[in-house]
Each structure stands twice: as structure tokens, then as C-alpha cells.
């Protein structure tokens, strides 16, 4: 068992060999550690979604290869026997509520597990367990997925992927279009899965506050290339790097920088989260008092 997801010299062209050809990924080399929480950032159109779709062989690299566990994916990979890989890697797309289709919430959540050959007898407990994870009442099970609220639909769709019990969870902007409370809920859920079940998380997000607060590693993409891969701490300490790729600082660091600019003696590393910044400020004042 490999300890990493390995991208080796991956190129990807949309509509290869036609006049519409578009190079979306160029020579991507990336090793994402299994068990880590890795975020992918980069401005719109930089190739983030293209990259993660390869983890489920929804598209295949035009050149190069990807290794996940014992699976090796390249341009010659056939479309047969992909189920074990797709079960292992759960993909939550942007606006996942668009994928709901069944007559009832229960049926929709059971859809994935049944496709992957789960026992009919275990389904009920799995559905209940997933609903509990996304904190929806069990009574919602028999409702139609089209008569619940948008936020609830999103949770049902996520529950449908979690029910497949993936080992690697890939999320493409899961919080977009939700209210702050809903965003926080989703992020805490992902964090919990990572910590309690040791799930590998790959997150695409444009919200730097979220990325900085939760991730261990950060990948920056720009024009189809991976231009940086480092720990969140290192990436967000490097303001010029972020500026170069049109990315903003998390608000905690912006505020921290202003305090530093005003000669406040915060001498610790940049805070990844507002709570961290709060702690630093409290410490500074208590140091001042002594």
C-alpha cells in the first residue's frame, strides 16, 4: 500500500486532436500523502476540478500517470473494473444537490452503496448513520429529495457519498452558496471525518479562511500547472507567492499583518485561524502585564 497519491507528469487536453483542443493541465507532478488534509487553491480556470476528476477516472490523463494504492491510471486505462477505485475515492462535486434523483431521500443515499454491492440488509443502518453524520433527522428519510430545502439537499447529497464509506474524500467547493452557519457545519463535518476516521481529504476552495483553518497541506494551481505545494503554514506565510497568483490572505493573517505593521509585538508564526490570532493577542497582553 502506497502512502501517497502520486501524479506523475500529468497532462490533460480537453477535446484532444480537434481544433477546439485546450490544454487544461500541464506536467503536473504531485504527491499527496494518504491521511492528510490537502487543499487545492488557484484562480478560476486554473485546472483544479480537472485535476480531481482524474482521481475517479472520469477523465484520463492525456500523458503521464496517477497512482492511488494499487491502481495505476494512464491514458490506456480501460473503463472496466473501476468500481473498487470509485468506491475508495468519494467525489463530492460543486453543487452536489444536482445529482439527487430518487423518489425518496433513503433511496438516494442507498444508491451509491447498492451500486458498489453493499448488502441489502445493511443499507438501513448505513443510511441512518449517514443522516446522523450530516445531522438530518431520520424522519426526512421518506421525503422526496425535491421537497426539502436547498441546504438540506446539499447535506443529503453529501450523505449519499459518505454512505459509500470512501477512504479518500474529494470535495469541489462544498461550501459554495451556503449561509455561514451551513458552511461552518460542512467544514466541521469534514474536519471530524479527517480526525476521527483518518480519512484523506482533498478540498478545492476559494475561501482562504477555510483553507487556512482546516488544511495541513496546500497546493497552488495556476494555468494548469502546480506552482506550489507546501504546508498551509508555509504557503500562507509567503504573501508574495499568494499575490503572484492572484490569491488573497486569510483574514486572520491580514489582521495579524496590520497589528505587526503597528508595532505590536506579536512574535509568533502567522495565525491560520482567528482563534489562534486571539490566543496570540491574549498572550501578548499577559506578557505585557508581567
Amino acid at each position, binding site marked *: 500500500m502506497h502512502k501517497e497519491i502520486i501524479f506523475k507528469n500529468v497532462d490533460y487536453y480537453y*477535446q484532444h486532436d*480537434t*481544433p477546439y483542443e485546450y490544454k487544461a493541465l500541464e506536467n503536473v507532478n504531485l504527491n499527496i500523502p494518504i491521511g492528510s488534509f490537502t487543499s487545492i487553491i488557484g484562480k478560476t480556470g486554473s485546472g483544479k476540478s480537472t485535476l480531481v476528476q482524474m482521481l475517479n477516472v*472520469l477523465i484520463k490523463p492525456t500523458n503521464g500517470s496517477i497512482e492511488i494504492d494499487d491502481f495505476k491510471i494512464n491514458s490506456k486505462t480501460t473503463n472496466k473494473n473501476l468500481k473498487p477505485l*470509485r468506491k475508495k475515492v468519494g467525489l463530492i462535486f460543486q453543487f452536489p444537490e*444536482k*445529482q439527487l*434523483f430518487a423518489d425518496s431521500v433513503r433511496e438516494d443515499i442507498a*444508491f451509491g452503496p447498492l451500486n458498489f454491492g453493499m448488502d441489502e440488509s445493511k443499507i438501513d443502518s448505513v443510511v441512518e448513520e449517514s443522516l446522523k453524520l450530516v445531522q438530518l433527522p431520520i424522519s426526512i428519510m421518506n421525503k422526496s429529495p425535491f421537497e426539502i430545502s436547498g441546504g438540506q439537499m446539499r447535506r443529503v447529497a453529501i450523505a449519499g*457519498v459518505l454512505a459509500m464509506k470512501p477512504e479518500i474524500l474529494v470535495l469541489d467547493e462544498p461550501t459554495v452558496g451556503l449561509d455561514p452557519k451551513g458552511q461552518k457545519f460542512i467544514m466541521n463535518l469534514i474536519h471530524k471525518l479527517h480526525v476521527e476516521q483518518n480519512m484523506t481529504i482533498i478540498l478545492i476552495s476559494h475561501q482562504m479562511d477555510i483553507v487556512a483553518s482546516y488544511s495541513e497541506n496546500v497546493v497552488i494551481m495556476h494555468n494548469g500547472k502546480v506552482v506550489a505545494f507546501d504546508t498551509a503554514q508555509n504557503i500562507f506565510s509567503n504573501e508574495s507567492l499568494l499575490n503572484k497568483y492572484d490569491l488573497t490572505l486569510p483574514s486572520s493573517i491580514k489582521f495579524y499583518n496590520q497589528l505587526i505593521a503597528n508595532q505590536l509585538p506579536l512574535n509568533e508564526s502567522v495565525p491560520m485561524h482567528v482563534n489562534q490570532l486571539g490566543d496570540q493577542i491574549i498572550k501578548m497582553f499577559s506578557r505585557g502585564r508581567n
Partner: protein
Amino acid sequence: MENFIFGRYMPGNSLVHNLNPAMKILISFYFIVIVFFANNYLTYALLFFLCFISLYLSKISFGFFLKGIRPLILLIIITVLLQLFFSAGGHIYFSFWIFKITSLGLISAAYIFMRFMLIITISTLLTLTTSPLAISYGIEKILSPLKKIHCPVDTIALMISIALRFVPTLTDEATSIMNAQRSRGVDFGNGNLVKRIKSLIPLLVPLFVSAFKHADELSVAMEARGYSPEMKRTKFKSYLIGMNDYISMMLFFVISLMIIFFRN
């Protein structure tokens, strides 16, 4: 599927791209009609020559074009084979059970094949070089005499252009829904017929939901901006009829006269 070009538009700036859309649509239909007048090799050669010139002037590469219409070849082959095996008459070369290959069968199969190629070439060329908006403009222009009998031509043209406008949106949507269901373990296009049809439900239900949502949102947005079907509308882009349009009309006309002259 990605390479399939039938019905697609490819932006460009060639002589063919810049012809007046109404005229281009009329010429294409005219061409399809004269295809049925051709009945010997010389007349077919003239038509192929016309196709060749049009394709050349459109600056679309021949290789790309041929590759793009390849998926239609199967359809053509089946029709040609039917013609080949089941048309009677003339000298019999080969016969087996109910199949016969006859000299007349061979000739009519060849003709059918050529007709197909000609019609596919010209209609693909029409959509490749004419944007959806221009097509709806052209249809509106062609139908405009019907306004006299109170036919809502403007509304029909608007409906066509909205429908065409949403084709790419819906294909994108279909791709993203298919991807989402694939990663939930659906095997599209695998297994027996029942299984295949069943695997379409998780695609079609969300697709319809989103199509209705688009329609609903669009109609609200149009009403909010004061759209009323009775109002007279102006065009953002107007198309004139220029020298090139007259020349190409002449060319097609002359070739059709030659075909009537040379046919048996």
C-alpha cells in the same frame, strides 16, 4: 463523441462564415434539392466539386471534417447495403437466399452513397460556419413573409435561438451529472438493455429538473426586463447581402443549370 461535429458551430472568419445566414440556409436547401436531380457520374462530380469549393473556402481542415462526420458513416453503410442487396434488375452477379447483387443494385447503391455524402457535407458545413444566433436570424428572415398571415415569426425565431443557446449548457450539465453518478458507481452503457435503460434514470431526472429550472429562471428574468412578445424588436447584429452572396448564389445556380443539362 467529443469529435462529433454534426450540428456544431466552429467560429471562424472565412468567406463562407461571413455569408448572409438567410441566404446560406436557402442555398443549402437548394443544393439538397438539386442533389436529387443528379443521375449520372458527371452530374455527381459537379456537385462534389461544389462541395469541395465550399469546404475549401470555409478554411475548415479536410482531415478534421472527415473525422467529424465519421460517426455517420455507419448509418450510410447500412442504407447502402440495403440498397445493394435488395434492389433487383440488370445483370445478376451474385445471389444467396433472398440477397442478390445486381448491376442495377450496384449503381443505385453508389448513387445513394454519393447523395448521403453530399447532403451530410453541405448541412454540416452550414452548421459549422453559422452561429446558432445567425441561424435563428436566417430562419426569421426566411419565414418573415408569414407575418402577413399573423404567424408569430419573431417569437418562433426567439424560441429557436433560446433552444440553440441552451444546447451547450445542457450538454455541460449532462456531463457533470453523469460524472457525479459515475462516481456513485453507475456504469453508463454497460450491461444488458434493461440495465442500460435503468442507468439513464439517475441522469435524466436531474437533467429535466435543471432544464425546467433554467426555463423558469429565464422566463422570470425576461419578464423582469419587460419582454413582451407583441413588441417589435431590433437586432443587435444585422446581416447585409453583399457581393459574395450574389457570387455564391450565381455559382449554385449555374451548377444546377449544368446538372439539368447533363442529366440523362
